[in-house]
């Protein structure tokens, strides 16, 4: 045992490439399909981003179109529509993030207080379900029940006698509708990691607290919440990266010209301005603006998550 033999299978780093390939070639082969897909369908479009600096004309192509420098980007801030879309995106996304963190935490704590395993499992199964429905389905249901003579307005009228509310056609009601429906669809799914964290708490902490005379509320405050804190920090910091993502699928399926003023977001605006109105270069510039800012935010948020909670992506 005086000399450590080089490991026979993968595991040794910094072998010369020749040796490395002889031993580990199957690993490289196995990565190949994914690599090809990524290079074509993820990195391929990144090359197309040069259109953002062009007055792109489909019939001239990327090589033939006129270069206009940063004009497209300057226009983002000149158009009222695009600045409005950016503001809407920020407002909707930030509220969604805040609500989408707080509610799952509360629900996870409440659910963990239910001792009947069967009931707990049934509730879990039901609240996870909406996450798997498509926004087309949910929008289909919402358009029906939120209409002027839909179920919700009927209910509101019979209980409170209120006038019918045009939830999806009134700029004042559109954002709350979007945020609440997003919460309904996703809170259960967001709860999963918190529930797992609570389940993982060592029961002896609770026992000790109880001996010290802590009430259940004090136990939640001094045992449950602190144990959840690292997970809460990770999820909150990572969500910083999505402040420009207000949810294309949802908005696209719910909005209409009546609510553009409060509901039009960057992604829907890109779709309309580029694919529908043919401003490819401008649309790409708006998209790149969004991706660029998001990228910076994600990098920052990963850094913070790593510093605060030792979180690594892989």
């Amino acid at each position, binding site marked *: 045992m005086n000399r450590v033999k080089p490991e026979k299978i993968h595991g040794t780093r910094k072998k010369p490439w020749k040796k490395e390939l002889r031993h580990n070639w199957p690993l490289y082969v196995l990565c190949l399909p994914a690599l090809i897909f990524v290079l074509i369908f993820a990195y391929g479009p990144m090359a*197309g*981003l040069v259109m953002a600096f062009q007055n792109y004309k489909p019939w001239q192509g990327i090589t033939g179109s006129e270069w206009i420098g940063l004009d497209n980007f300057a226009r983002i801030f000149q158009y009222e529509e695009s600045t409005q879309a950016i503001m809407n995106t920020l407002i909707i996304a930030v509220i969604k993030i805040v609500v989408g963190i707080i509610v799952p935490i509360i629900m996870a704590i409440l659910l963990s207080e239910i001792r009947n395993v069967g009931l707990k499992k049934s509730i879990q199964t039901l609240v996870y*379900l909406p996450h798997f*429905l498509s926004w087309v389905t949910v929008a289909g249901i919402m*358009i029906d029940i939120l209409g002027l003579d839909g179920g919700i307005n009927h209910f509101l009228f019979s209980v409170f006698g209120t006038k019918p509310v045009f939830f999806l056609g009134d700029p004042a009601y559109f954002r709350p509708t979007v945020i609440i429906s997003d919460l*309904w669809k996703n809170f259960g799914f967001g709860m999963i990691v918190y529930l797992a964290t609570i389940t993982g708490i060592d029961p002896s902490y609770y026992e000790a607290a*109880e001996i010290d005379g802590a009430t259940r509320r004090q136990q939640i405050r001094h045992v449950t919440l602190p144990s959840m804190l690292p*997970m809460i920090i990770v999820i909150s910091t990572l969500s910083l990266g999505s402040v420009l993502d207000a949810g294309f699928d949802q908005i696209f399926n719910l909005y209409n010209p009546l609510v553009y003023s409060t509901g039009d977001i960057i992604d829907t605006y890109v779709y309309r301005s580029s694919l529908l109105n043919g401003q490819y270069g401008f649309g790409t510039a708006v998209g790149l603006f969004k991706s660029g800012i998001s990228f910076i935010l*994600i990098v920052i948020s990963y850094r913070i998550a790593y510093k605060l909670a030792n979180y690594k992506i892989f």
Partner: protein
Amino acid sequence: MYHKSKGYKLFSIFNHILLILVALTCLLPLLHLFAQSFSSKAAVNGNLVSFWPVEFTADAYEKTFKNSNFTGSMLISIVRTVLGTLIGMFVITTAGYALSKDFRGRNALMWIFVFTMLFSGGLIPSYILVTSLGMKDTIWALVLPGAFGAYNLILIMNFFKTIPKALEEAAFIDGASFFGIFVKIFLPLSLPGLATVGLFIMVGHWNSWFDGILYMSNTTNYPLASFLQTVVVQSSAQSMALSQSEAAALSEQSIKAAQIFISTLPIILVYPFLQRYFVKGIVLGAVKE
């Protein structure tokens, strides 16, 4: 014991009621859809249907399945989901297995994959790429561009990492090859992970509607979700180039309900069986170490 305190008992009762109500709100919209789809047209139009069919009839289903646009789209969705899941799982499990090992260049490869989560070319460049590859109006436009997902890769990779190294070394000594070990040891032992990712990919394909609208110039090539998007959400039956009677038939709420309900049925059926897996999978993917 806190169980005995009066305040806690009161809280507990409220808590049970609250959570049961919350859980019910997740079910009721689907029940409403179900009830509408089996109710008569008159009852639905008169807003008489809540959560139980009124004047029971399967008329809407008969009309839906006689509609060749619907059945054609459903077939496309089935083909797309099966094909897409197979390709997606192949790409992700192979790379996931390799990247769960330590080898030179692993970190570089990992960054190449993870970078796709952080930055993308965006809508227009992707659209132009798919179009210029000649995939427009083919099933490949729906299946290939999204085949690889970095999030799923990380999930699967973490699953593979939990498999004891000793198991693998023993197999190596017995003369098994890399590929043999992958297929005979790692895949069977990672079933929960594979089920989780499989469910995500399947649901993703089944629910995906935007790419259909983007890449299919002819509505007869639409997958089911795109078809539904135009019928249910855009409600613009005219844009579907249908005859007057067909358009009128599609705009009936009971038929819309039937169509939406049929489209969610595969998810409702598969989901309970895979649920116990995905909870484990997500927790593993999020918490790690």
